[in-house]
């Protein structure tokens, strides 16, 4: 490795490595958290829905943030919310339940690639954390 450095130093004519001021790193620290539900099996609503800080209600009703016009879906079926910087899903006492990776749940903290099933509609959860530059 030192051989490679020697070549660079020779080519560019540097004698020493210059320190980078700490402040330049601090500028890049803020993280943005983004999460998505990838919906399949609903026909009309298939696609990617981005989650935010506001709770999202999933159901058959037109009042829902994600409206799934499927007979096995209750009018207000489930809610996805941000709690302690984690997304979780709650069953709103639906008839056919909320399943996460095949397990019927009342409530479940969501992790990447969790497969949610609501009345036959599949919703894949994914989240990412990105540095955002000012």
């Amino acid at each position: 490795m030192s051989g490679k450095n020697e070549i660079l130093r020779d080519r560019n004519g540097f004698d020493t490595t210059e320190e980078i001021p700490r402040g330049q790193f601090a500028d890049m620290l803020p993280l943005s958290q983004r999460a998505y539900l990838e919906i399949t099996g609903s026909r009309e609503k298939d696609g990617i829905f981005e989650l935010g800080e506001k709770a999202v209600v999933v159901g058959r009703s037109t009042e829902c943030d994600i409206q799934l016009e499927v007979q096995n879906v209750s009018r207000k079926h489930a809610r996805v919310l941000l709690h302690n910087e984690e997304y979780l899903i709650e069953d709103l006492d639906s008839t056919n339940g909320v399943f996460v990776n095949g397990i019927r749940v009342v409530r479940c903290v969501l992790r990447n690639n969790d497969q949610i099933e609501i009345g036959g509609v599949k919703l894949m959860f994914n989240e990412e954390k990105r540095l955002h530059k000012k």
Partner: protein
Amino acid sequence: MKTPVEEKMLVTFWGTRGSISTPGRTTEKYGGNTPCVTIENQGTRIVLDAGTGIRNLGIELVREAEAGTQLLGVHLFLSHTHWDHIQGLPFFQPAYLKDTKVTIYGSPKKERFLASVLKRQMDYEYFPVSMSALTADIRIQEMSEENLHLGPITIEWEEQGFHPGGSVRYRFSAHGRKVVYATDVELDLIFSGDHRTKEKEAAARTYLDFIAGADLLIADGMFSEEEYPSRVGWGHASIPAVIDAASKSGVKQLAIFHHDPQHSDKYLDDLWVKYRSRYLAGPPKMDLFWAREGLTLAV
């Protein structure tokens, strides 16, 4: 017919890991906190074990109390007093609130009394706050022969051998439904092995009777089939042993619990894929899954 919501027991996993907490990216799905589970029904709240998972539970309980939605009364049942099952207690925030009542239940067969074991964990050499400084009304009660009734929930218990120092299994019944918590027991020694003794036969019979027909069994399944031969005598069950016992006893739903600290999310996912499909179709039909932190089920 749909069971009324108020009749269901809500079971939440706050810590599912065995032996030692395992924070990090590779364990975030199933969780890194050591055992803690809650069972709630009609305002009665039961806590099972005080592993590191009890810290997050405590934060939620204090939040609820501050919002005025729930009075803080906690019934904590310990399976035993090994480190991973009591280590979170000094960090349980409700224990520091004077309006809280915490009753801790455990085996009467400890060599040292339960109270003294818990107090020693908070000895000044190990922790800066002594147990006597906790401001909550804390009572320590060893289990008696009689069944216990808390609100609508009936609690039965049995001593378990086949774990260093022993452990206790509990059965919680309400509205005709049963949840069994049976962790830290080496079922392989009870159900197999070269030497069948009367003690093993009796242990097998009582275990199967106790879990029979459970709507949910939360059970130690720490080791894979391949790992177990090099861990005989460690006091924990292999996954095939617990699945076999549960399916023989008509258990409806089995939560594999007390995950080995070395088992990553991917490793547990692979085990889940390997075993789940075999039992989902039946017979015997059994819903099998690996317990994960932050999961609440209705039983």
